[in-house]
């Protein structure tokens, strides 16, 4: 316990007495954390936009005019059983007619023609949403079996297939690009932190050797650097967190307009705060401890 308190004391002493080095280390860590958080923002916005685009896509299945309620229920049940299907909305004949009238409320010709008919000419509709745009093809194929040939009058997929394929391709490309960018940032962050810590340890190599020569154990020499790593990681997290928060406050009103979501980024960070802080702190801390351990190993061999 005595050793631990001494190690703690030396860590704080080192930070204060090597203040410029401590300052530089924290600055580098803050910059890296800001870069990582920028990426988190880019990912969040991209995911949101992509999911919004995906939500706009659906496939409507128009049932024949004279089919029974049980047949429609059966198709709904059959489609809902697919894991790719996230939502099905059933609109009965009346709802379809009401929606049709609402859509064409400014077109008297259509409304008059509709009134001429004695009964509702429109069939019920099933609106299907899948997890990914590419899943629609599977659903449509599933619905194109002979048993449903007379029940299903038409599907909108054929009209929108090309658009869906294009959106599917674009969103997949965006997701891939963000993933590559994340990996690139992670590699750059790793090397920047690795070299910062290596330089910091290199400047103290003489001290490390001297400590060993007067009888310090490896733990006694390493200890303060581990504590310093924890302190540096903590301080840089707080500073980066404050900057990110301020930037979010600035960005959110603008993004809210574009994304149709008020306070989107602030909410995103609030909802994922533990995950983001936990991962970032853990990664920075692990990286600094492992790097300092590796960099120091050579100088401890005295």
């Amino acid at each position, binding site marked *: 316990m*005595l*050793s631990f308190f*001494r190690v703690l004391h030396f860590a704080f*002493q*080192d930070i204060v*007495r*090597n203040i410029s080095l401590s300052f530089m280390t924290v600055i580098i860590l803050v910059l890296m954390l800001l870069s990582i958080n920028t990426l988190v923002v880019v990912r969040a916005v991209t995911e949101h936009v992509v999911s919004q685009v995906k939500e706009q896509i659906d496939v409507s299945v128009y049932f024949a005019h004279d089919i029974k309620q049980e047949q429609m229920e059966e198709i709904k049940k059959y489609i809902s059983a697919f894991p790719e299907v996230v939502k099905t909305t059933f609109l009965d004949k009346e709802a379809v007619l009401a929606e049709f009238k609402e859509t064409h409320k400014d077109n008297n010709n259509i409304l008059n023609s509709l009134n001429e008919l004695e009964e509702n000419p429109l069939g019920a509709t099933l609106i299907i949403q899948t997890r990914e745009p590419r899943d629609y093809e599977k659903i449509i194929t599933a619905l194109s079996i002979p048993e449903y040939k007379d029940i299903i009058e038409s599907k909108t997929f054929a009209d929108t297939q090309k658009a869906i394929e294009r959106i599917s391709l674009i969103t997949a490309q965006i997701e891939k690009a963000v993933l590559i960018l994340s990996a690139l940032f992670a590699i750059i962050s790793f090397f920047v932190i690795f070299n910062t810590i290596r330089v910091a340890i290199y400047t103290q190599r*003489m*001290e490390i*050797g*001297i*400590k*060993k*020569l*007067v*009888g*310090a*154990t490896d733990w*006694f020499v390493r200890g303060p650097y581990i504590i310093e790593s924890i302190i540096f990681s903590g301080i840089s997290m707080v500073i980066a967190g404050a900057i990110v928060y301020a930037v979010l406050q600035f960005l959110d009103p603008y993004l809210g307009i574009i994304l149709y979501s008020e306070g989107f980024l602030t909410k995103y960070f609030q909802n994922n705060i533990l995950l983001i802080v936990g991962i970032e702190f853990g990664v920075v801390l692990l990286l600094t401890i492992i790097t300092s351990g590796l960099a120091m190993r050579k100088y401890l061999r*005295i």
Partner: protein
Amino acid sequence: MITLSQISKQYTKKSVGLDNISLHVDSGEFVCIVGQSGTGKTTLVKLLIAEERPTKGKLEIGGWDISRISYRDVPLLRRQIGVIFQDYKLLEKKTVTENVSFALQVAGTPHKRIKNVVPRVLDIVGLSDKKYAYPYQLSGGQKQRVAIARSLVHRPKILVADEPTGNLDAINAHEIIEILKKINDFGTTILLVTHDKDIVNRLRKRVITLHNGQIVVDKKQGTYQL
């Protein structure tokens, strides 16, 4: 106290540090180890503090065979031997008091005892008025005294001094040797590695002369003969 039996240290095929040397140093002796550069003086010091391991032979300190000492036991050995170096090896970011205290702190000495012992040791080396100074604020002689204080603070039985006067002027060198003599008078075994002819001749102590990694002269009251 110190026994070397057929010790050899070979760095590479062509680079030999020590070549089959045997010697014994009694408790309380003052021994000068002399020789030209590259004759194995520093290798000997490195073997004594386990900075290097011998290639062959047996090295005992106080009955403890350190020729095959485990990595874990090295700090324990170093806490029992005082070492001073030509370049002082002080911690630049620590004050005089902190430098001296450090040798006790690594050994887990209680704070109360450190507070009690360190000022006394600083007093012995004449640095009581410099206890809050940093190494860069001290002269070469003062730095070496701090190093001596640090090496003495845990009351070692052996003090190894590797060219302690190498960077000092004649007056400071003389003062350092006087301190070493005083320490020796209290019973500490001193191994002084030097190539300062005047110091060796004035001391009139045991002199071991190394040449090409071998002991060529070992005289009880020797002089510098190179």
